[in-house]
């Protein structure tokens, strides 16, 4: 793991997803597959071996009809900062071959497919099931190879893959910015494919550290919460819902405990 930069706070890309707006339509899932050359196979109904960097879960309050409620929860990789937000994400800290890394410049957790040797320790470490193993050789039949994007390399059998916050889009944006002699990105210059596609506008993406970005304010919404806050994974994906049962679904609570509304933001300043 690289040493943290000590002079600047750095960018910290993240998302705020409004669960009350999410319709469960699946655009984000497919946008991600199309953007990132995610493979597919004949049967994808076994969700335990189906590669979906973005997966939309259905949450329910389990009350009897007609008091039943549901919400959809889109789950990309949380790009966990780990305890103290030091970059020791659950997965990064365990990968024996440094095939997944925490980028302190962006807060993005990378995945290096050609270095991963498929031990799956990172998957055991990730409580969000954000990581997917290539159990099969990816196959694009007929002319479907033509639809592959050169910006993201297709993965081979036997390696792990996951949401990258569309890192190639960041790189392309930075490249453009540098060509124009700029060092900073506007909010709109770097947006992920899922954010861009979402017809409900439920996903907001940006630099959590940048006051000019919408996520900076949204993350402090009184109804904002993160998944499994108590584990200290320090995710960069926040959710908002006006339903208490939804917020409570975000974490594990003992029966007598109250739902925690305010994320215990673990910041680290060095």
């Amino acid at each position, binding site marked *: 793991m690289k040493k943290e930069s000590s002079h600047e706070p750095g960018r910290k890309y993240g998302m705020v997803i409004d669960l009350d707006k999410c319709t469960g339509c699946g655009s984000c899932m497919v946008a991600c597959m199309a953007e990132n050359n995610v493979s597919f196979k004949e049967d994808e109904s076994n969700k335990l071996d189906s590669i979906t960097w973005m997966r939309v879960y259905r949450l329910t309050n389990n009350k009897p009809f007609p008091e039943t409620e549901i919400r959809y929860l889109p789950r990309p990789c949380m790009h966990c900062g780990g305890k103290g937000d030091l970059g020791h994400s659950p997965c990064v800290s365990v990968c*024996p071959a440094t095939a997944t890394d925490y980028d302190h410049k962006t807060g993005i957790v990378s995945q290096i497919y050609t270095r991963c*040797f498929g031990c799956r320790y990172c998957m055991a470490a990730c409580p969000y099931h954000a990581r997917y*193993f290539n159990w099969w050789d990816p196959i694009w039949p007929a002319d479907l190879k033509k639809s592959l994007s050169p910006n993201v390399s297709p993965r081979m*059998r036997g*390696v792990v893959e996951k949401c990258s916050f569309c890192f190639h889009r960041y790189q392309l944006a930075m490249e453009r910015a540098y060509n124009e002699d700029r060092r900073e990105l506007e909010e709109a210059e770097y947006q992920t494919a899922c954010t861009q596609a979402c017809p409900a506008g439920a996903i907001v993406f940006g630099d959590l550290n940048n006051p000019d970005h919408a996520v900076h304010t949204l993350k402090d919404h009184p109804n904002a919460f993160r998944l499994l806050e108590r584990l200290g994974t320090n995710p960069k994906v926040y959710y908002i819902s006006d339903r208490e049962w939804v917020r409570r679904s*975000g974490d594990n609570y003992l029966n007598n405990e109250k739902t925690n509304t305010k994320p215990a933001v673990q910041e680290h300043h060095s």
Partner: protein
Amino acid sequence: MDSAFIPKGVKRCSFGTFSLGMLVLTAIVFWGFYAAILCWLKGLNQTNMNDSYGFALWIWADLAVIAIGGGAFFTGLLRYVIGLDELKNIINFAVIVGFCCYCSAMLILAIDIGQPLRGWFIFWHANVHSMLTEVAFCLSLYLSVLAIEYIPILLENRKIDEVPFFHNLGHTMHGAMAVFAATGAFLSCFHQGSLGGVTGVLFGRPFGYREGIFVWPWTFFLYTWSAAACGPCFTMLTCKITEKISGKKLVKDNVYDLLGKISGWMIGTYMVAKIADTLYWAYVTSPSLGFAVMDYYNAHPLHHGIWILILEIVICGVLPAMILISRKGRANATLFTLATILAVIGVCLNRWVMVMTPMAMPVMTFDSWVSYFPSWQEVATTILPLAGGIMIVSLSFRYLPVFPQEQELNPVD
């Protein structure tokens, strides 16, 4: 037929009987290799693992064989470093069993990873923060040490020993064995510990996660301790099985008694630590993460019920410790054997639970428990090293002077 190779002064079964046994084992080994080749050529879709169950039978088998292979390092430590001389009568066997266990672990790992040809990246691009890196380094180094410890035993084969070079080499190596044993003990301590660390550091998996000191979770120490405690039990158990099969006494009772007593105290102290750890985990760590201890055991009473904890701690922990600590318990051959069996089951069960439950258990509230049953390929490749191990032990027993007391206990008329 092969009598020229059989150590002097001991009696072995007929070559025919031996060959028949080896044939059966070879068949099993081939079956296992067939499965392994399927996994290598077609990929891990040959298994029943999935994205939730990325660690499964194989990782358990790895942790388990290494735990029970712990008899080698611990007996070595007692014999060469602490200087308990009686143990020289079982140390050869302990080393061979340990060697088999570690070979098994290596082989299983080579099948388990998705890109076996990139396995060396773990050394090349090592991430020092990863417990698995520590495992890989210690495992390979300790396997080398075991190989070095095994070589002098090999060289004692009647025919090989006839070559002066090998005779001298064996002699020299024997002399240096204390150094290797010490190195091995040190490596193995870390190795066993880092395996404990593998699940213990997973702070995203409340069932496996343990607090600890520095970078080491408590499981780091518990694994080392439990391997030291239960490993010798496996050595003694396999030794007793060898006695049973060969139909003769190979090690004197005082050796068993000594190793059993030490094991008993080790298991006893381990149990104190394990129970303390369990209580702290159940009443402090877990609740702070939002889990009541019964959340782990309620969902699937059959696979993940509280019975498994009771079985591990009381029946396969406290009970064998009590038997082995008490003089009467050790004196009763049946009880003694039962205690070693329970201890071995206990440590394997511990590794099982630490691998399976964290995978099966949902952490996100809207996720569900996952069940898993290994495919035949997984079973075959797990049995493969077992059969291989039996072959190595049998060959060693037949052709090498493994047990110094055998002649004395079984005079050939």
